[in-house]
């Protein structure tokens, strides 16, 4: 019975995910028709700002941002604050560690794709150490052993190899992204071994569980920053867009510039 229920829940979850994706695609199709797309301005200076923002779907994105912030104020923020104020910090840290460790294979493959052996070695060692000494990822022992966490994802790798980002997008409950990074996210799911667990296997439930919990945990940690964003910005949407775009480019630049030798490490 329980098994049947969990199978149903999984199907429902996937159905909802498919619906959400279909909804986004539908909205993007509408925007492609022009109604939710900002036409380029004629004034040269305004045009320069328009190009720098790289956000032709701004009307659509702003709507999505509004949906996100509406949900944030109505439900997510109170729950997030409750989580942050009542769940002990060590537990929240362990959930974050678990999430990072189980995503580590994707980081490793991304580092390989970027042609960065030192980073790939670090990711490999992190996975090995944290899955064993770190008790399946609950504890970040690898950082103590000299392998600090780093981020590499397929979107960064595509950027490093010269793939253009495409227009900026804002996805509710997920945040800022671009066409390239959205594609990178799909690739990263393909590079995460747990996603290949056989149907009906308990690991699938674990996969959904740690992903949802990890995402929520991270969100709870960011409620202060969201509050601050709203308090100190005149246009929080534009502030977030600019900060995210700059941060993303700096991550790609850092990946490109990471030419550390692998010697003396054995890998």
């Amino acid at each position, binding site marked *: 019975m329980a098994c049947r229920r969990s199978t149903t829940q999984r199907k429902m979850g996937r159905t909802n995910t498919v619906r959400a994706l279909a909804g986004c695609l539908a909205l993007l199709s509408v925007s492609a028709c022009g109604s939710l797309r900002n036409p380029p301005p004629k004034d040269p*200076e*305004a045009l320069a*700002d328009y190009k720098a*923002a790289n956000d032709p779907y701004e009307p659509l994105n702003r709507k999505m941002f509004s949906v996100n912030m509406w949900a944030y104020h109505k439900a997510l923020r109170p729950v997030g604050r409750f989580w942050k104020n009542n769940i002990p910090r060590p537990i929240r840290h362990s959930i974050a560690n678990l999430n990072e460790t189980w995503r580590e294979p994707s980081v490793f493959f991304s580092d390989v794709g970027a042609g960065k052996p030192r980073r790939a070695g670090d990711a490999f060692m992190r996975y090995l150490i944290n899955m064993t000494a770190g008790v399946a990822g609950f504890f970040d022992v690898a950082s103590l052993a000299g392998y600090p966490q780093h981020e590499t994802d397929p979107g960064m790798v595509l950027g490093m190899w010269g793939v253009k980002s495409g227009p900026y997008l804002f996805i509710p409950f*997920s*945040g*800022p992204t671009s066409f390239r990074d959205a594609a990178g996210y799909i690739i990263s799911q393909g590079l995460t071994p747990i996603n290949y667990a056989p149907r009906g296997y308990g690991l699938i439930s674990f996969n959904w569980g740690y992903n949802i919990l990890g*995402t929520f945990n*991270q*969100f709870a940690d*960011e409620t*202060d*920053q*969201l509050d*601050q*964003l709203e*308090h*100190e*910005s*005149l*246009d929080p*949407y*534009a*502030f*977030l*867009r*600019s*900060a*995210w775009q*700059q*941060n993303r*480019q*700096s*991550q790609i*630049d*850092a990946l490109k510039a990471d030419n550390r030798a692998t010697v003396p490490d054995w890998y």
Partner: protein
Amino acid sequence: MMLRRFTRRTMLGAACLLTLLPGLASASPATDFVSSFGGDLAHVLNSSEPVSQKREEILPLLRKNVDIQGIGRYVLGRYWRVATPAQRTRYLTLFEDVLLYAVTVRMGSYQQVSLKILGEVPSPAGTKVTVSVERPRQPSIILTTVVSGNPPKVVDLYGEGASMRMTQRSDYTAFLSRHGGQVQTLIDALSNQVARNRNVSSN
């Protein structure tokens, strides 16, 4: 996921973390300046005075060592030219208030911090001096100050790859473009923000 580490908290809050730079090896006029500025701030921040008193003592240091007028002008972008002289003056006054509030409001939350200059590189905007901010039981923060001018001043601050003044410029120009390019609407919004900040400070 949405914000991760690149918020203004990191960028501006870290400005008051320039305090523990004295004693670091000097390598150039830019690092000398950052080290000296940090030393002056450290003298105030490490004292046992109440936060309100520290704020009063830190404000003149920030006014002297940060190119607030230059940053303000950059942030207004193409709208600087369409603003009247009176609007420019009023805007810069409000911008200074907003900037100083953002820097000083969190200075009490940074304690027992140690900083290390990691290096410097030239850039079109000035010399970029990168600093590692280390805090007990918390991950270190890497930030980059941009120093330019004679006498040297801080003209920008990068946190997690995001330029403070560029991000602020996006914020203000987007606001203006959505309000018909009327600089007065920005001035009104900043006035409200300053009043709100003062209420928060007094409570």
